[in-house]
């Protein structure tokens, strides 16, 4: 779309980089984003190399595939091997459960289909009413509204294995971690198109500069610039860099659909443990479409972390992928050991494919 190409303008990027360098803070600064697409933009375009040395841009838990607990993948695998067809996105298909992935389950006779959209899954179910379909519903706030829409109109032979997670509770957890010492948040642009700006208002009050940013190279650089400016001014604020898509209220229609269909519950994040009020569950009136209630799924507690894998530290931005002993040795995009290497949004995968190390 030509109208939006300006956000890749080289000349403006050079000017912006110059301004960012002028804002070089006296002490090291750590800025955290929580979005796989941000990490892709940063790494693919080499943006870290443009920043002053003491500005550290780190990736938080922004990959919705990486943070789904192994146990929930095991549930999907169990369903695929016990008479239902499990439908999900490509990244989820390859993510390791405790022992195997859905891809492996398929090679063992499991029924698994990969789709681009939940709509494709619903259409499959509509075409085959005598067979049961389960959509493995993962994703953050960007991906929940369409599942709410379909839950309200899907056929009887369709249910959801819900593994949605919410971003603000994860930011709360990051902000409270003493050993992370974050100096600012770049909030995820597309999550924010849905939830708006309100859920972030508390972070500046906690002393954390927060900027909602888009996904072109200039968007991310501008986000960094705005945070450094706030730090220089000593005035944490909530700012919206992605004003062409994010409004203060967000998408109210989408928020209402989610509120009609889902309740908020505590949720486990792979390798990170439980985060209060960070997950969604179908409301009681939709229990016929809740795969966990519809089927007697029989799985163990699950093993989140492959021995030696550093995904939990990478997900929290405590270490970078190249600090993991398995990175591009035992664990590669072709033969991933940890979830962060599987998903195209995973920090390890992005670094393995895109980064100049």
């Amino acid at each position: 779309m030509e109208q939006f190409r300006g956000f890749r303008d080289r000349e403006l990027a050079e000017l912006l980089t110059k301004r960012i360098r002028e804002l070089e803070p006296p002490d090291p600064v750590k800025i955290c984003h929580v979005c796989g697409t941000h990490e892709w933009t940063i790494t693919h375009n080499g943006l870290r190399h443009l920043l002053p040395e003491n500005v550290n841009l780190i990736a938080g838990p922004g990959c919705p595939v990486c943070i789904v607990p192994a146990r929930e993948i095991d549930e999907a695998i169990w369903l695929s091997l016990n008479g239902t067809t499990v439908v999900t996105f490509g990244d989820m298909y390859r993510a390791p459960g405790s022992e195997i992935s859905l891809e492996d389950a398929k090679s063992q006779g499991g029924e698994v289909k990969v789709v681009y959209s939940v709509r494709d899954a619903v259409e499959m179910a509509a075409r085959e009413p005598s067979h049961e379909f389960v959509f493995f519903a993962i994703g953050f706030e960007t991906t929940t509204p369409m599942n709410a829409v379909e839950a309200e109109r899907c056929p009887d032979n369709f249910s959801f294995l819900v593994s949605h997670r919410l971003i603000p509770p994860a930011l709360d957890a990051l902000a409270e971690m003493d050993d992370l010492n974050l100096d600012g948040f770049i909030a995820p642009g597309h999550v924010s198109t849905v939830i708006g700006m309100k859920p972030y208002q508390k972070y500046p009050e906690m002393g954390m500069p927060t900027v909602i940013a888009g996904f072109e190279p200039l968007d991310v650089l501008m986000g960094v610039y705005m945070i450094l400016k706030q730090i220089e001014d000593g005035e944490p604020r909530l700012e919206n860099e992605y004003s062409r898509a994010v409004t203060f209220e967000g998408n109210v229609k989408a928020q209402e659909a989610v509120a009609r269909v889902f309740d908020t519950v505590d949720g486990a994040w792979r390798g990170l443990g439980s985060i209060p009020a960070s997950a969604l569950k179908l409301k009681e009136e939709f229990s016929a479409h809740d795969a966990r209630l519809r089927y007697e799924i029989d799985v163990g507690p699950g093993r989140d972390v492959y021995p030696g894998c550093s995904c939990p530290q990478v997900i929290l931005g405590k270490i970078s992928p190249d600090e993991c002993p398995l990175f591009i040795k035992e664990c590669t995009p072709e033969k991933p050991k940890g979830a962060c290497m599987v998903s195209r949004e995973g920090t390890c995968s992005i670094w393995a494919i895109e980064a100049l190390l």
Partner: protein
Amino acid sequence: MCLAVPGKVLEKEGTLAKVDFGHGTVREVDISLVDVAVGQHVLVHTGYAIQIMDEEEARASLDLWKDILERLEGE
């Protein structure tokens, strides 16, 4: 996962719309979540429009940045 792509709404029928993503790519998109008019741009995630894109705002914010960043020259 949270990848979303802007496109222009060409026509609407009920909860579906034909959306032009440029370079000859036109796809059917569900517009249940937005109140969009033909000719407007939408941000599309996994086949659903999640928000209306503001072209005017895009232009204005680029101009504003350019202006601010240039003004700072020599300060």
